[in-house]
């Protein structure tokens, strides 16, 4: 048990290390280095920069060093000094730019996770127990559609529909009239209304997936010998269902929490971008399109780190739920 936890932790540290290398390599892979882009920008603005000045800049930034030394400088600055470099698009420290938008990204991600599990577990159980009923078919139709619709398209459609039929702006977090208001109950409701669309959009495919997984898991358990033997002891169908198959089916569902988080984090940038949310999504896409690679690399690193931590949490959850793992 303790050995298991220790192993998980060590594994997590190594994964984080690997992720940081990948993020850094992506930063590096952009054509042209910082000095060249800087020079090009300056030149576009009318200033003339000599080759010598570019060289100077390069040396002062350490860009002439081999990549592993640059990587070391980058990661040690992050870990030791919480210094993520400077975004030249924003002309501000990368860390600052990110952390002002991160809470919203996290808020949306966790609301989405909650939404997904809150919907999918009961619906999945229902679908399994009433297999091939009209309800089950309806659920699976919606589920198929949810899996097949790209996030951004769903976002566009929902935005278009709400704009057309409710006349409400859906982009952003607040209606214009609350934008600069102090916090109040009405403002909170307004915020929740605005959060609902991104949460649904982000959670749609994950929910559909989880419903199917839950349904399959329950169906799988329903056929197990121990269910029959519990039934032979006189349990009522409801008690039987909740105590055994459902409880067992929760294990594989809980163990996918990490992957679900990965999916949510994966989809979040696009949805944030399409819906113009003030979260890290638009930040990330603009940084990619403008090749603001320090910012992009930092965001990739943070996204990955989040999912890795999420995976650890889901592993711990599984340990709590399943004595077979605890006993090993």
């Amino acid at each position, binding site marked *: 048990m303790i050995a298991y936890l220790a192993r998980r932790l060590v594994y997590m540290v190594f*994964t984080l290390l*690997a*992720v940081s290398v*990948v993020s850094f390599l*992506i930063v590096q*892979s*952009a*054509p042209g280095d910082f000095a060249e882009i800087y020079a090009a920008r300056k030149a576009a603005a009318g200033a003339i920069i000599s080759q010598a000045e570019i060289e100077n800049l390069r040396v002062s930034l350490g860009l002439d060093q081999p990549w592993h030394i640059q990587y070391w400088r980058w990661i040690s600055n992050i870990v030791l000094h919480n210094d993520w470099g400077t975004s030249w698009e924003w002309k501000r420290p990368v860390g600052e730019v990110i952390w002002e938008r991160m809470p919203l990204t996290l808020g949306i991600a966790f609301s989405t996770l909650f939404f997904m599990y809150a919907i999918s577990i009961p619906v999945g159980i229902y679908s399994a127990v009433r297999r091939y009923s009209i309800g089950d078919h309806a659920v699976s139709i919606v589920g*198929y*559609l949810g*899996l*097949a*619709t*790209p*996030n*951004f*398209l769903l976002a*566009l*459609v929902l*935005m*278009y529909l709400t*704009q*057309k039929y409710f006349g409400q702006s859906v*982009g952003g977090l607040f209606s214009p009239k609350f934008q600069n208001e102090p916090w109040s109950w009405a403002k909170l409701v307004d915020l929740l209304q605005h959060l609902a669309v991104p949460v649904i959009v982000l959670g749609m495919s994950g929910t559909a997936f989880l419903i199917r997984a839950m349904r399959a898991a329950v169906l799988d358990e329903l*056929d197990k010998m121990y269910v029959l033997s519990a039934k032979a002891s006189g349990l009522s169908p409801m008690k039987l269902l909740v105590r055994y198959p459902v409880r067992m089916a929760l294990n594989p569902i809980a163990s996918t929490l*990490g*992957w679900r988080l*990965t*999916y949510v*984090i*994966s*989809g979040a*940038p*696009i949805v944030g*971008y*399409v819906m113009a949310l003030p979260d890290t999504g638009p930040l*990330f*896409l603009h940084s*990619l*399109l403008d*090749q603001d690679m320090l910012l*992009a690399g930092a*965001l*990739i690193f943070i*996204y*990955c780190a989040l*999912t*890795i931590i999420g*995976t650890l949490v889901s592993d711990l959850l599984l340990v709590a739920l399943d004595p077979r793992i605890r006993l090993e």
Partner: protein
Amino acid sequence: MAVLDTFGLLKRKKAVRRPDLATQWQLMWWKFKQHRLAMVGMALLGLFGLCVLFAEAISPYAPGERDTKYVTGSPMMPHFFDAEGNFHLRPFVYARKAERDLVTLRMKSTVDTSQHWEIEFFVRGSPYKLFGLIPMDIHLFGTREGFIHLFGTDFTGLDLFSRTIHACRASLGVAFVGVVISFLLGAAIGGAAGYFGGTLDNIVMRVIEFIRSIPTLPLWLALAAALPREWGALATYLAVTIILSLLGWTWLARTVRSKLLATRHEDFVLAARLSGCSDYRIIRRHLLPSFLSYLIVDTSIAFPEILLAETSLSFLGLGLREPVESWGVLLFAAQSIRSVDQAPWLMIPGIFVIVAVLAFNFVGDGLRDAADPYSR
């Protein structure tokens, strides 16, 4: 034999099924046929296949043909009944008239219900080369007078229907090539891991776990953004395909590996070995059939994943680019809520994406059920 017998049973519909006598492939076919959605999916995929082969003939216009008389025009519905309620055997669309809006001073078209443009089939239109070889000018449908834009036109007057049909090629092509590459990668890497085992297996499994634990879409986006802008459309096309397949092989590799490990020690393999089967025969007759079906299932799952990823990338302007046309590229025009508000029909290519993904999922589900013919 099995195939022949399968069709024999198809004809004798009332024949009692004998699961005890059927071959594995027969059982799988029965199971697959029972899955009605899977059959629907197959039919849809067949339609998409026709679009890929005969895009030029199906679409009334060439994808680059601009219609200056109908810019940002809404979809034109074919009718059988006219405004007076009279039935016409030959479907028609109402004529459009271009007028200048007196307020905004912009050109806009209005529907003229008094005038019908009849739809004709197999009409002559702009010339093209079928399969890139045979010069032709027959189009599946068109109008003799006026024009027909079933899905409307975009802000530059391009026919959305023709473009969407043509886009089947790039969208399904990227997905297909991507799946083939990830299939090969997955089979090779997973096969090596399962066959050699030990350290290599360990490393491969860790790498797979690693790739699975990181959010792939941002990574795809970043890789795609790192492609040099000055690359041509074709080079970008290839690069995007490779990027997409690079991260899609993990599922398959895992399946191949675990199935290989599991079946290697199965009793039936041991029994075959003891009864003197050659290695080749064991692999071909015993190992491969026992997990080939799982490979097919995993492939059918990878397909929609790559299709969706390509669409997202292109929609954001980071994937394929004009003049290559994919559904994602077409959706790029619908990126802002403003353009969607002005021309909601620009989202129509999205329906094609959904239908294609649905079709693949249906078929995949049918295959998954069929892969395990002994289950309920």
